[in-house]
C-alpha cells in the first residue's frame, strides 16, 4: 500500500490513469448531486479535486464483521466511486493490504510519521474498553491504544459503519466487552459518522470526496452528513403512498405483502431511521431492503440493535413487556374504591346517628 512513488496531486493520478476530462466532470457533477449540493458546486469540486493533494488514509478495523469494508469495495465498479481510490492514498488497511504482522505495523508507524497532522483516519468497528481492552488487540496493542495513538496526528476521522459511529452490535445489551463508539474516546478531532450496517458504498465515497474537496460536510446531531442522513427512509420510501392510504401488509405472505403495501405493521423502522437507502439504494441502485419486501431495521441509528423493541414490533406499539402491573393497578384501584365507599358509608352512618342523637337531645330538652 505504501507505494514507492506517490503521485502529488489528484490531477497527476487522473492524467496517469488516462481519465478523460469528460469522465472527470461527470464524476464531479454526480458527486455534487449525491451530496445535494447546488449544481454550481460541481465546478468547485472539480477545481478543488484537481489541485488537492491525495490525502493519506489509514483504515483501522476494530470490533467489526468487515461488512462495511465489503460494502465499500462493492462501490460501482468501474465507475466514478471507484475513482476515489485513485484520489486518496490508502496507505494502511490491515484487511486489504498484502503486508502482515510486523511489516504492517511498521507501515502504520511510517504513514503516521510521514503524514502527521494531514492524514485521514477511517475507522470501522467499535472499540472495546472492558478489562483493559483485551477483547481486541493487534500486534500486542489494544484497539483503544491503536486508536488513540493514530488519532493524535489525524486531520479528521471518518467512522464507517454503525459500530464505529455508535457502538452498533458490539454495544448491544449486555455489551460484554464494554464496547464504545469512536466519539467516546476521541473528542478533539473532527468526526464524521457514516453509519449503517453496512453503510451505502456511495455514501462512504461521496463523504470522502466532500472532505477532500470542501472539508467536513454539514452534519446532523449525530455527526452524520446531512446530505445522506437528512431525511428518514419513510419520507423517501416508494411505499409511502400506501402508508398514507392506510394499506398495510399484515404478514409477509398476505395480499398486502404481494401488492407491495406499506410494511409499517410488520415493524418497519423507516419513520425513525435517517439514511439514503430509499434514494441512493444498493447494488448499483438496484433496490433497498424495503423494496425486497423486508421492513427497515433502522441500522443507521444509534443503539439500533436494542431500540424500539423487536425488529418486527410496529413503531406505534408500546414498549411494555408485561401488562400485569396495569392489571394489578386496576385491582388496587377497585380495592381503593371499595375502601373509599365503605369509609364514606361509615362516616355517613355516624353522621345520621349523631343527628338522631342531637334530635333526641333537643326533644328531651
Amino acid at each position: 500500500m505504501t507505494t514507492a512513488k506517490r503521485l502529488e496531486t489528484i490531477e497527476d493520478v487522473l492524467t496517469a490513469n488516462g481519465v478523460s476530462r469528460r469522465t472527470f466532470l461527470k464524476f464531479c457533477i454526480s458527486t455534487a448531486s449525491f451530496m445535494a449540493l447546488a449544481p454550481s458546486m460541481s465546478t468547485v469540486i472539480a477545481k478543488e479535486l484537481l489541485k488537492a493533494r491525495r490525502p493519506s488514509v489509514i483504515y483501522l478495523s476494530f470490533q467489526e464483521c468487515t461488512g462495511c469494508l465489503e460494502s465499500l469495495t462493492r462501490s460501482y465498479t468501474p465507475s466514478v466511486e471507484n475513482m476515489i481510490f485513485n484520489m486518496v492514498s490508502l496507505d494502511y488497511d490491515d484487511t486489504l493490504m498484502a503486508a502482515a504482522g510486523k511489516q504492517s505495523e511498521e507501515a502504520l508507524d511510517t504513514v503516521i510519521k510521514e503524514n502527521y497532522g494531514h492524514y485521514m483516519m477511517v475507522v470501522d468497528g467499535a472499540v472495546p474498553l472492558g478489562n483493559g481492552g483485551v477483547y481486541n488487540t493487534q500486534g500486542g496493542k489494544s484497539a483503544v491504544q491503536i486508536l488513540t495513538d493514530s488519532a493524535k496526528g489525524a486531520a479528521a476521522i471518518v467512522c464507517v459503519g454503525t459500530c464505529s459511529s455508535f457502538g452498533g452490535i458490539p454495544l448491544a445489551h449486555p455489551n460484554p466487552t464494554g464496547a464504545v463508539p469512536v466519539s467516546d474516546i476521541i473528542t478533539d478531532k473532527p468526526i464524521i459518522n457514516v453509519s449503517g450496517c453496512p453503510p451505502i458504498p456511495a455514501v462512504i465515497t461521496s463523504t470522502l470526496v466532500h472532505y477532500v474537496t470542501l472539508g467536513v460536510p454539514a452534519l446532523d446531531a449525530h455527526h452524520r452528513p446531512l446530505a445522506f442522513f437528512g431525511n428518514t427512509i419513510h419520507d423517501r420510501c416508494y411505499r409511502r403512498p400506501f402508508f398514507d392510504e392506510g394499506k398495510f401488509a399484515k404478514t409477509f405472505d398476505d395480499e398486502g405483502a404481494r401488492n407491495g403495501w406499506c410494511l409499517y405493521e410488520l415493524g418497519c423502522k423507516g419513520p425513525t431511521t435517517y439514511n439514503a437507502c430509499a434514494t441512493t439504494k444498493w447494488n448499483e441502485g438496484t433496490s433497498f431492503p424495503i423494496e425486497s419486501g423486508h421492513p427497515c431495521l433502522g441500522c443507521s441509528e444509534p443503539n439500533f440493535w436494542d431500540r424500539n423493541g423487536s425488529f418486527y414490533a410496529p413503531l406505534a406499539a408500546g414498549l411494555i413487556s408485561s401488562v400485569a402491573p396495569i392489571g394489578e393497578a386496576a385491582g388496587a384501584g377497585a380495592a381503593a374504591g371499595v375502601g373509599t365507599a365503605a369509609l364514606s358509608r361509615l362516616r355517613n352512618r355516624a353522621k345520621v346517628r349523631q343527628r338522631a342523637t342531637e334530635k333526641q337531645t333537643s326533644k328531651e330538652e
Partner: protein
Amino acid sequence: MELLEFARGPALKVALVVFCFGVLWRLVGTVLLRFHPHLSVPRNGFFKSFMLGLAVAGSRSWPYRRFIVRTGYGEALGYSYHIGLFLVILFFAPHVLFIKSLFGVSWATLPSSIVTIIAVVTFTLLLAVLFRRLAYSVLRKLSNFDDYFSWFVTTLVIVTGLMATAHFGARYETLMAWHILSFDLLLIWFPFGKLMHAFYIFPSRMINGYFLARKGAPS
C-alpha cells in the same frame, strides 16, 4: 434511553398504571356510594325502570328542541369534536397497532390522509370550543382550572399528533415522543379531572332516569 423509548416504555407504563388505578378507584367508589333510600312504593318494577333509565340516557343526550336555538351551537361543537376524537383515536392505523400491542385486538382502519383531515377539523373545533368558553361570560365564570387543563391535554395530543404526521417542528422521533408523552399526560390526568366524564356521563344519566322511573316520573 432515548426520549421515544422513554415515552413508549416507562412513561407509558406509569401513565397506564395511574389511569387504571384512578379510573377503577373513582368508578367503584362512586358505584358503591350510598344512595338515598326511596321510601315511597315503587311505581315501576326494576326491569321497566332500567329500560326507562336507558331511554333517559339517550334522550338527555340529545338537544332539547325548545332550547335548540340557544344551545344548538355549543352542542353541535361538542358532538363534532367528540366524534372527531373518536375517529382519530380508533381508526388511525398506528393507534390501532398501539391498542393491539396492549390488548391483542384490532380492527379496520381509515386512510391516514382522511384521519389527518379529521384531526385538523377536530383541532379547529377544539379552538372554537375554547373561544366559546372564553367569550361567553356565564360559561367563563363556570369554568375552572380543571376545564382549561382538560382542554389543554386533549388539544396537546391532537397538536403533537398532527406535528408528527406532518413532520413539522422537529425530527420525527422527537415529535412522536412528544405525542406519546402528551398522551401519557392525558392518561395521568384523566381519572382526576373532568375527562372522567367519559365514564360517568351515560351511567349517571341512566341511573337518574332509573330512579325517576321508580318514582313514577319517567321523562
